[in-house]
């Protein structure tokens, strides 16, 4: 049954802005994006909001709902109390463009900085053989829909603008882990690069990235911590360092 709900939507741009209260109808089973669209169609024709698939698969409608980074299409109106006001703001880690839309180009810049996959030089198409158990770890990370909620929530850049230049963020450190775990990737220096160029050391494993991931990827436990351990192997473990000098254990 339709009922009225109270919504507070941040409206504005880079010069100024603030929260605006609206009352809007919501039907049973609707998600926050549905009611935002209703506001757009009936009360605020120029309300800017990014969205695309409305099915939790593209990661476009990232915003902050009651202070938590979420996908608006995956947040049920019914998950809030009858009398509760739902506060909707743009992502707070990225520069604002307008209303609920932010400039997420930081993420695309970081994506371009991660060294690409390096296949074996002689591998002809169709000849690759990989076992399912060897691809599964990286497959988990490839579920990522690039909603950038983890990038938004990570305090390393959310709370410290100056760290943006030296920190790739959870999504792209996870990408480095994905490539380091890829059974056929040939690049040997990813661990060092993760630590020295992409800021893995900034991560203090407080797990907010994992908490907000709509795909439920265990970013911290399965990507960042294993990557930190791999970094320790090559940079901070004298015994393993010595071991690697004595016997070349390639292709482990």
């Amino acid at each position: 049954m339709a009922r009225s709900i109270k919504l507070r939507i941040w409206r504005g741009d880079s010069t100024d802005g603030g929260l605006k209260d609206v009352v809007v109808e919501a039907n049973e089973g609707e998600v926050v994006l549905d009611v935002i669209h209703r506001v757009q169609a009936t009360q605020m024709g120029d309300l800017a909001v990014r969205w695309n698939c409305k099915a939790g698969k593209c990661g476009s409608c990232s915003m902050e709902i009651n202070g938590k980074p979420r996908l608006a299409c995956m947040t049920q109106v019914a998950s809030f109390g009858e009398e509760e006001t739902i506060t909707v703001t743009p992502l707070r880690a990225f520069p604002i463009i307008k209303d609920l839309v932010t400039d997420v180009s930081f993420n695309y810049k970081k994506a371009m900085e991660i060294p690409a996959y390096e296949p074996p030089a002689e591998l002809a198409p169709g000849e690759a053989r990989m076992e399912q158990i060897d691809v599964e770890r990286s497959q988990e990370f490839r579920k990522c829909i690039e909603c950038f909620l983890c990038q938004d929530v990570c305090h390393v850049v959310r709370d410290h603008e100056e760290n943006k230049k030296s920190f790739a963020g959870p999504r792209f450190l996870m990408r480095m882990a994905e490539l380091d775990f890829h059974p056929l990737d040939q690049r040997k220096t990813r661990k060092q690069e993760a630590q020295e160029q992409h800021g893995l050391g900034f991560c203090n494993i407080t797990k907010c990235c994992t908490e907000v991931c709509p795909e439920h990827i265990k970013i911290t436990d399965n990507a960042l911590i294993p990557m930190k351990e791999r970094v320790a192997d090559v940079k901070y473990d004298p015994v393993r360092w010595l071991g690697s000098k004595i016997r070349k254990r390639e292709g482990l």
Partner: protein
Amino acid sequence: MSGVFSPTRAKIKERTLRTDKWWLQPLLTFGVLFSFVIYATFRAFENKNYFVEESHLISPFYSPCLSESCEPAATIGGWTPFSAEIFNFALSPALIILIFPLGFRMTCYYYRKAYYRSFWFSPPACGVAEPHEKYTGETRLPLLGQNIHRYFFYAGLVFNVILTYDAIISFRNKEGEWGHMTLGSLVLVLSSALLWFYSLSCHTCRHTVGGRLKHFSKHPVRYKLWTTVSVLNTKHQQFAWFSLAAVAFADIYVRQVASGAWSNPIFF
């Protein structure tokens, strides 16, 4: 102004717009960890009531007992390489060894999350702005030192062996005959078992048994181990708390029995 108040970001004056009780979790963590630290410090310096000779119970805080001040029956075969005092300061046997279990927990990937959030507010909770102007995380010393976690893990395994040994030798009666059991034995078994689960579920353990491999398919045994540890690893947080509580309780139990406040019920 930095962080969420930077000039380019949407202008919102609140540090967070979260409406749930986000402060509860860090507060609880702080409360429990802080209490533990206070108690452990007190006990480490107390230097008594850590051994119950007739029941063969030793507190996990004081095992292995390596000081010349240790009662002979509490030592491992009388091995006491450390003198009883340094610089006229009475060195409690606990102070000699506590660095290892403490170091293991301090550098543990779970506890790091817990204390970075609750003690250092970095961040206090997800989406709640932290109070610090600068942040460098674990990129430089001293926090870069967290990378020695694996060595504390190895040391922790040695301690687990010793504490398991302690639990086993408690299955004796006053006369030293095997096949007997007190409530104290059960307490020690529980704490050493939970310590094993805590160690084996650790991220470093997961990495060591198989995580560092690129091709699981070439190492079937290590893959099996990795799979098992991975399952345990999802419960690492729980094991961290349960084992902490169990160790603290084992110490309290031994202390109370040793001081005569509690009796140690004999089962058989």
